[in-house]
Structure formats: structure tokens, C-alpha cells
């Protein structure tokens, strides 16, 4: 009886979460005539035509590359700036620590929606309007608080005694960090970089407001989807979904912890 309940529960959960993903992938591979024929549910043959057209005729490839570049730049900036702060939060006691932590938590909740419009005006002055760097800078401001909080939690899991031992043998504090703590923290850092990638890959509002020609993939979809035929929408959705799902599979072990931190 209890076993049956669990099996039914698992089936219901699998159906609920997998059906939409299954349908959009099938839809993106269905031929136009099969899609518009109400009698056909599972198509007789699959086609890559829509994906091909999305990439090469409708600017999908350029948008995808822009998205990847924006994500890469914003991850780079976020770690460069946020990682030292994360280290400071774990290893040092200093006045104002709790206040700064509180401010970080507050900035976590400021949506890009609120800062996007003033950012365009700032970017116009700085000659960053409609640029990849501009979007990456905005995404970094969303990712940095997350990086600070998560790296501080990662570093605190690496015992300070290892660093001390290194310093006893004549390493400076910085050397001890680079040679001892950093290598031990790499798996966690890699997982958080992937998580940061997904944050940037999925962000649509700021990317849409800040660019006109250099649009990221979600921004491109948002501005063109309404005017596109259905099968291009599904192709776009599939292209958005697949990398995110693959990446999340690799970091599934860390996922719950990371969402815990990103929501705090």
C-alpha cells in the first residue's frame, strides 16, 4: 500500500515535470505540415529544419554566441570582484561585517527590472549602450552578491589550519590561499560558476532593455517570438532549455545548497 503510494507519486511527479519538456522538444523537431495537422500527435519523421532556420536565418546563432559571451564576461567579473570579498567574510573578523552582509542580502533582492532603465542612461554617457559588455556588467551586479555569499561558504568548508600549515612553511597568506585553499575549493567554485552561467543565460529583462542589435538569446526571443510562426518558438525554447538542463545535471549535487544561498 505504501509502496504503491510512492510509485504513483513518483509517476505523477515525473509526468508533471517532464511532459512540457518532452512536448517542446518534439514540437521543435516536427515538420510544419505535421504540426498544423490536428490528427498528428507524434510526427512520422523528425526534422532539424526549424532549428537550422532559427540559427542561420533568424539570427539565433549570433544571439546564442552573444549569450555565451555575456555569461562568460559576467562570470569573470563576478568572481574577480566577489571572490576576495567571500574570502574576507570567512577568514576575517572586522567592524561592520554584519552590516555589509545585510546590505549584500538586500542587494540580492533588488531586481534588474528596477535598475535597467537608469543603466541605459548611464551607458549612453559611458558609450556602453547596446553593447555586450554593458549587459555583462549588469548581469555581474546580479551575480556578485551570490558569488560573495557562496564563496564565503565554500572557503569556510576548507579548514583554516591547512593555510596556517602552509604559512608555517614560509608561504605568504596570498600564496597559501592560491596553493592550498583555492585548489581545494575548485569543485565548489566550478559548480557556482555554472550556476552563475545559468543566472546570466536566463536573464531577459535587462538584456532586452540594454541592447537593440546585440541581443542575448532570451532577449532575441522576447522581441521576435510574437511575430514568429509557432515552430520557431519551440525551436527557440528547446535551444534555451537544453544547455541549462545539461549544466544543471552536472551540478545537481550542489543545487539545493546553492539555491538555499541564492535565496537567503
Amino acid at each position, binding site marked *: 500500500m505504501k509502496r504503491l503510494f510512492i510509485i504513483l507519486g513518483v509517476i505523477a511527479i*515525473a509526468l508533471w*515535470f517532464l511532459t512540457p519538456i518532452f512536448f517542446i522538444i518534439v514540437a521543435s523537431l516536427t515538420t510544419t505540415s505535421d504540426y498544423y495537422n490536428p490528427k498528428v500527435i507524434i510526427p512520422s519523421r523528425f526534422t532539424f529544419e526549424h532549428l537550422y532556420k532559427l540559427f542561420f536565418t533568424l539570427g539565433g546563432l549570433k544571439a546564442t554566441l552573444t549569450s555565451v559571451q555575456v555569461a562568460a564576461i559576467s562570470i569573470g567579473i563576478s568572481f574577480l570582484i566577489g571572490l576576495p570579498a567571500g574570502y574576507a567574510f570567512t577568514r576575517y573578523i572586522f567592524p561592520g561585517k554584519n552590516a555589509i552582509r545585510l546590505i549584500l542580502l538586500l542587494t540580492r533582492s533588488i531586481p534588474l527590472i*528596477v535598475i535597467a532603465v537608469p543603466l541605459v542612461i548611464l551607458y549612453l554617457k559611458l558609450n556602453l549602450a547596446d553593447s555586450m559588455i554593458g549587459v555583462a556588467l549588469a548581469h555581474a551586479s546580479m551575480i556578485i552578491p551570490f558569488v560573495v555569499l557562496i564563496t564565503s561558504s565554500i572557503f569556510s568548508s576548507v579548514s583554516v589550519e591547512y593555510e596556517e600549515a602552509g604559512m608555517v612553511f614560509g608561504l605568504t597568506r596570498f600564496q597559501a590561499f592560491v596553493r592550498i585553499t583555492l585548489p581545494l575549493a575548485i569543485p565548489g567554485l566550478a559548480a557556482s560558476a555554472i550556476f552563475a552561467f545559468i543566472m546570466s543565460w536566463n536573464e*531577459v529583462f535587462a538584456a*532586452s*532593455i540594454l541592447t537593440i542589435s546585440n541581443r542575448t538569446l532570451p532577449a532575441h526571443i522576447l522581441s521576435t517570438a510574437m511575430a514568429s510562426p509557432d515552430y520557431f518558438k519551440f525551436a527557440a525554447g528547446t535551444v534555451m532549455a537544453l544547455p541549462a538542463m545539461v549544466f544543471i545535471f552536472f551540478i*545537481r549535487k550542489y543545487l539545493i545548497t546553492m539555491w538555499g544561498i541564492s535565496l*537567503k
Partner: protein
Amino acid sequence: MPTSVFQRGTTVSRSKLIPFLLILPTVAYLGILMGYPLVENVRLAFSNPAGALENFRSLVSTKEFWQTLTNTLLLTVFIVPLQLILALALALFINKKFRGYTFVLYLITIPLALSDITASLMSYSIFAPSGYFNKILINLGILERPMYFFGYFFKERAFWIVVLTEVWRATPLVFVILLAGLQSINKEYLEAADVFGFSKWKKFTKITLPLLKPTIMSALLIRTIFAFQIFGVVWLLAGRDITVLAGETYYWYVFMNNPNMASAYALIIALVTFVFSAIYIFALRSKHLEEGVGT
């Protein structure tokens, strides 16, 4: 000789400046790219040649504004409780830790990786006129011709599709919070209840639920904050047939080229966010901060 003396994992450094130097880039970056735009947003919202409050006066005088506010509130009112109930059920189910539960856990967390854009395209593949909902029902002979869910004349149906999509996409977010809360409940309470012969239902209502209350509160607040920022799902599925605060910000900036009105809408989102975040951080997290547990 090392320059510092370690005490229980922290240092009393000779140079007290180091931690501040390490934090300075973060503070400076967020000051320039978040603090400044935030202040600028307030300035934009209140600047109008006709007077500081003119933007808000014209905002309030439009019919769309009240509709927008109502829509955003209605979406919040329907989405958040549904998510909470579903997420609680999922969390209680996973917390049974049956064989293979980690696989199910992975299934539930998939939507966390998907953007609102992707999720709405997925639900469009189901509810489009030629979508799978119609295909399947027509093939089963239940429907004669396709049922329409989108477009100006069907905005009530579109509303429910938006609710469904948001529930699908963001329930896992609530689930993650609730599961963490469930796992932190001390098993001894439940064991004690077993000793006293409590029924399952009684254990749930008298022990689990009261102990989970703070977690539920924070999940509610976080979801409410996000619900007020709803944009992608509504914009893709209903356009301006269903207006929401973030959608209007986008509309006024991109289509009407009016940063002031856009900022006025954004300011409302910011205020709601701030009030709820402040409640969250000070009322629910203050205890953790005092203990220095923080993250």
C-alpha cells in the same frame, strides 16, 4: 614568520585594512552598478517639467495602472498559495527518503534551470491552437475544433495558463526552501510523539507544521517578492492583454520611449520588494544574524 596570529579560524591581523581592501571592489561595484541606478530610478520617477509628482499623477489617472496593479495582485494571490501547497506536498513526499528519491529530487529541480521565457514557450507548445492539448483532445474525440487560450478575447483563459506556467516553473523554488526547513526539524520531537501514540495527521499538524512555520513564512515572502516581478511568462503568453508592473516598465521604456513613466512603474516594484525584503531580513533572519550564522 607569519604576520598574523590565528584564533579559531579567524585572524587578528596586524594590518586591519586587509579585509576592507578585499571587500572594497564588491562594495564599489555594487555602489556604481546598483546603488547609483537605484537612486537614479527614484530621480527619474519624480522628474517631470510639470512637477515632481506629475508622473505618478498621470500614472494613477490611467485605467491601465489600476488594471496592472490588480492583475499583478491577482496573479500573486493565485500563484503563491498554490505553489506553497504543492511544494509542501512535494517536500513531505521527498522527505520520506524512499529508494531512488535523489532521482526524483533531480526531476523536481529541473525547472530551476529554466528561464521564464523557456517555461512559457513550453506551455505554449501545449496550449497553442495547434498545440498538444488540442491535438490530444481532438484525437480522443473530446473536442471538435481547437480550443483557444490566447488572444485578447481569451484573456481570462490566458490568465490561468500564466498561473499554471508560473506554478510549474517556480514551485521547485519554494520546494527547495521547504525541504531544507523539513530536514532541519529535530527527529526527536517526532519520536517523542510516537511514544505518546500520536496519529500521522496529529504529528503533522501539532509538530511538523508549527516547527515549519518560520520556513513557510520566508518562502511566502520570497515568492511574493518574485511574483511582483513577474514579466517573461506574461509578456510571451499574453502580451499586454494582461498588464503587469514589470511588463509596463518594459512597455513604457521600449515602446513609448518614456523612461520617466517606466521608472515610476519600476519604483513601485522596488518599494514592494524593499518592504517585503525588510520584513524578511529583519523579522525572520535577525536571530541568525545575531548568532553570526549568516550564510
